[in-house]
């Protein structure tokens, strides 16, 4: 299934990627993460070893057990610092 993945702020810079469309078999965010982290140490560090990682699916912050479906927009970002 195809999903869009977005990366923001420090994660975008660390990974050198702002957005990608991925054709992937992952039922949940938790299943998606190891697929991304296999890409190399940069990815492992930024996503899988990151205790502060925030995840949103379709503009709502979710936990890792959240199911994914075709066409979802998944976003990874660090804790927010606006205001």
């Amino acid at each position, binding site marked *: 299934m195809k999903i869009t993945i*977005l990366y*923001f*702020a*420090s994660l975008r810079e660390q990974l050198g990627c702002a957005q990608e469309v991925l054709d992937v078999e992952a039922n949940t965010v938790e299943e998606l993460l190891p697929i991304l982290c296999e890409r190399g140490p940069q990815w492992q560090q930024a996503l899988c070893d990151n205790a*502060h990682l925030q995840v*949103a699916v379709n*503009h*709502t*912050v979710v936990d890792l057990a959240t199911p994914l479906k075709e066409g979802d927009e998944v*976003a990874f*970002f*660090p*804790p*927010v*610092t*606006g*205001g």
Partner: protein
Amino acid sequence: MSQWVRVQQEDFDLSTEVARLRDGRKDIGAVVAFVGTVRDINQGDRVSTMVLEHYPGMTEKALHEIREEAHRRWRLENSLIIHRVGPLAPADQIVLVAVASRHRGDAFAAAEFMMDYLKTRAPFWKKEQTPEGSRWVDARVSDQQAAQRWEHADADI
């Protein structure tokens, strides 16, 4: 984007926005407005400029949810959130939260609640330029604690 939640590059004028919020109504007895501005010092370092990044779409949704939650919790006549994005310099205005209500208690509490939730739930990120180079601003534990005060407050209101 609704007229009461705005994410924009441009600056805003407090008097204009408060007048818009009040809209000449005579049943409004209190307006509380918070303006956040860029400091030229953070964690002991000079900050020369700053860039605010956000997540278009989710930002507006998060701000709408915060505003709606404030209206559920307090008796408010109207409220407004403006948050700027893009490059900013020290002393620039970043954010405006303004709340109008009949009595001051609701407006004070709701404005503080909206800022506390905005700081921990709306997807904005600050990158500041210092003499040592640029760096992403870290989230503060004190901001998390400020937001947590409201999480079990429903029973008290």
